[in-house]
């Protein structure tokens, strides 16, 4: 594959199978940015791709990530994942030294989180997890400070944690999620995607690209909460919208909703007829 040096620097590569579209969109976006750089095309050269793990994303919906893994939080304290993942959780695989895609990813999320209805900390939590085992809690703390500051209106600190960990833990986590990345010197090639897990670590949805829609994010969290007591309205919303793999977005399920409405109306009609029974009043047709 031919990539510009600039693209290589931001570590974008096409991802295989289901991750292809999201990553390809990100690639196009970054390619557009690259072409806008002065002399961007002039620096184009072939970058050899190392053998070994092929970068990509294999969706493993329904699989569980291991919650016994231990990561370090921003203060350097060791935390098991099951301490942090107690409900719907958005997990962002990133590395804090990333100069581009990871920033877009976290920035995109920071932009939309204040706009969604679920309450951070109570209804959901966000975890940025570095897949660079050399990164430190200090770097994580700097990222935290930056994104929490970007959100301005008091996003709770406990609502978005920034973790680092060792190579083995990172591998177990990313393999469980089907997330395949590759180190290239000090940088990485990796898919630009995040995923939402339920409280038991089950992966319920992958979200692609750096641009989050409030609707998609909310519905993914609603989906992650299923099995636990949710509000009636969120159950109804979850019933009326379903994930469309083609558009990678939640769409209003017209057929399901209209079929339900028709069946409910017919059921109510039949119930009414049965309850009221035979009419005592004999109808005269009057003037024909």
């Amino acid at each position, binding site marked *: 594959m031919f990539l510009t040096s600039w693209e290589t620097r931001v570590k974008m590569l096409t991802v295989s199978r289901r991750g292809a579209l999201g990553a390809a969109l990100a690639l196009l976006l970054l390619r557009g940015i690259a072409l806008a750089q002065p002399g961007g095309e002039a620096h184009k050269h072939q970058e050899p791709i190392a053998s070994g793990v092929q970068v990509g994303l294999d969706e493993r919906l329904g699989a569980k990530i291991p919650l016994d893994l231990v990561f370090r939080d921003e203060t350097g304290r060791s935390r098991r994942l099951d301490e942090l993942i107690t409900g719907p959780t958005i997990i962002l695989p990133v590395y804090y030294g990333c100069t581009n895609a990871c920033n877009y990813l976290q920035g995109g999320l920071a932009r939309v989180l204040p706009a969604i209805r679920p309450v951070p900390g109570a209804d959901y939590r966000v975890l940025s997890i570095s897949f660079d085992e050399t990164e430190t809690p200090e770097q994580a703390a700097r990222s935290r400070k930056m994104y929490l500051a970007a959100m301005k209106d008091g996003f709770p600190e406990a609502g978005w944690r920034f973790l680092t960990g060792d190579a083995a833990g990172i591998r177990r986590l990313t393999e469980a999620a089907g997330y395949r990345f590759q180190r290239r010197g000090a940088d990485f090639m990796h898919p630009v995607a995040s995923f939402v897990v339920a409280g038991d670590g089950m992966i319920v949805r992958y979200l692609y690209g750096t641009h989050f829609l409030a609707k998609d994010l909310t519905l993914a969290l609603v989906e992650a909460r299923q099995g636990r007591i949710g509000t009636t309205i969120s159950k109804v919303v979850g019933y009326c919208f379903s994930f469309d793999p083609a558009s990678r977005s939640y769409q209003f399920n017209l057929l399901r909703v209209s079929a339900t409405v*028709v069946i409910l109306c017919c059921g109510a*009609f039949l119930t009414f*007829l*049965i309850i009221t029974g035979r*009419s005592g009043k004999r*109808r005269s*047709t009057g*003037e*024909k």
Partner: protein
Amino acid sequence: MSLAEQTAAVAGGFWQDSAKTGLRSWIFSTDHKRIGLLYLYSVLGFFLVGVVLGLLLRLELMAPGATIVTAKTYNALFTVHGVVMIFLFIIPGIPASFGNLVMPIQIGARDVSFPRLNLFSWWLYATGALVVLASLFSGGGAPDTGWTFYVPFSARTGTNVSLAVFGVFILGFSSILTGINFVTTIHRLRAEGMSWGRLPLFVWSLYATAWVQILATPIIAITLVMVIAERTLGLGLFDPGRGGDPVMFQHLFWIYSHPAVYIMILPAMGVISEIIPVFSRKPIFGYKMIAVSSVAIAAAGSLVWGHHMYTSGMSDTAVMVFSFLTFIVAIPSAIKVFNWVSTLYKGSISLEAPMLFALSFILLFSIGGLSGLILGAAATDVHVHDTHFVVGHFHYVMFGGTGFAFFAAAHYWLPKFYGRRYREKPALLGWAIMFVGFNILYFTMQVLGMQGMPRRYYDYLPEFARLNLVATVGSWILAVGLVIVVLNLWRGLFRGEPFTGNPWGGATLEWSIATPPPTENFEEDPVVTHGPYDFKGAGVP
């Protein structure tokens, strides 16, 4: 003096008693009997149009190559034949015409629950029919997609599919409203003593049919709107290039259209269940099972649509499930057939015209039903899919079944409403010729299909020539029989001998009132004290 006026002058009853006069007394009448006759004339008119188109199709296939029309015209012919026969004749055929005429009287009501809605349903039917007819002569010309309107062709063809589909959309609403009206009427307006266990089986079949109309028809309405949107707005709903799915159309279409087959056949079965005991002079065998089997057919028949799509790329699991469910539907159908035959056993059988049509229904429907199992079994379906076998099967069920039941009902009930009767001998002659022509035409089609002749082609290989000629000759014989039957009915009902009392010896309520029925049906509200096939209780000798 028009024929209707002549009849009214002699017959009396609801024919005379109208505040309005002339055409207005018909097209603005809320009397269920007049609306029933409006439907009857309408559907019979479209039936004859469909017959002419069918004869033209057979004429084209009489010999290989272009015989009388081009390939494009042939495509339009079979499409319009299908649309007219399915949507304008056979779906409203028995339920809307004979259902309206007979059902309220059979349950002891003075009319349906919503008489104005009933009239509005007919107007919707007439409007939809006019729109469909307009589509033939405007825009890009008559649709050439087949009555199934399959995408992607229906989304791309330059013919006037949008208007035709819009017409069918309107017809769907007519069907839904009739369904709602009938369900409400059967629940609310039954006479005192008319318990569910005393409902005539024709009413039971209409009840099951009405629920299918209410539940399934909205789906075809939505689907047809999607086709129009696809054609006019290019939404890509069924275009895989834009994330759509053409197989989704087939699912949506058949989710309605297979249950629609039961909208067509269930009322026909109801007619047969009325005629067999009356002309056997014996109470029906297995009343409860026949009643329950109508509901069972409606329920199970709503789950089998996928058997139209075995070759469309469904998963093997889906194919097996749909195949299994299809075989399930055969059970309640067979229950009816066995109960009818059991009713005949040791009966005092009277072979008059209604009975002959009813008996031939049992035979022809059985052939159609059993050939349906060949299509319902996935392995054999792949062999005969989209061949003339399917066409033959479908006509055995729809024409041999519903068509013959329609004429059985016409011979059985129409004299009651006209006060005059047809001549028996021409009726028997017409029936016999129809029966012979029918089997020559459609059995040959099934053989052709087994040999591999595809459907919807205007041309074929030379080895199919002989049987195609035989089938075409069969179509002429069938047409001759039809002409005799229709002319005999027409002449008899307007100029025939008077028909009074209860000459058939029926025990249902319509035979207890004056002939023709008065506008309000009953002088006094009836109190039902016996079952619909309790001939002794009804005092019928």
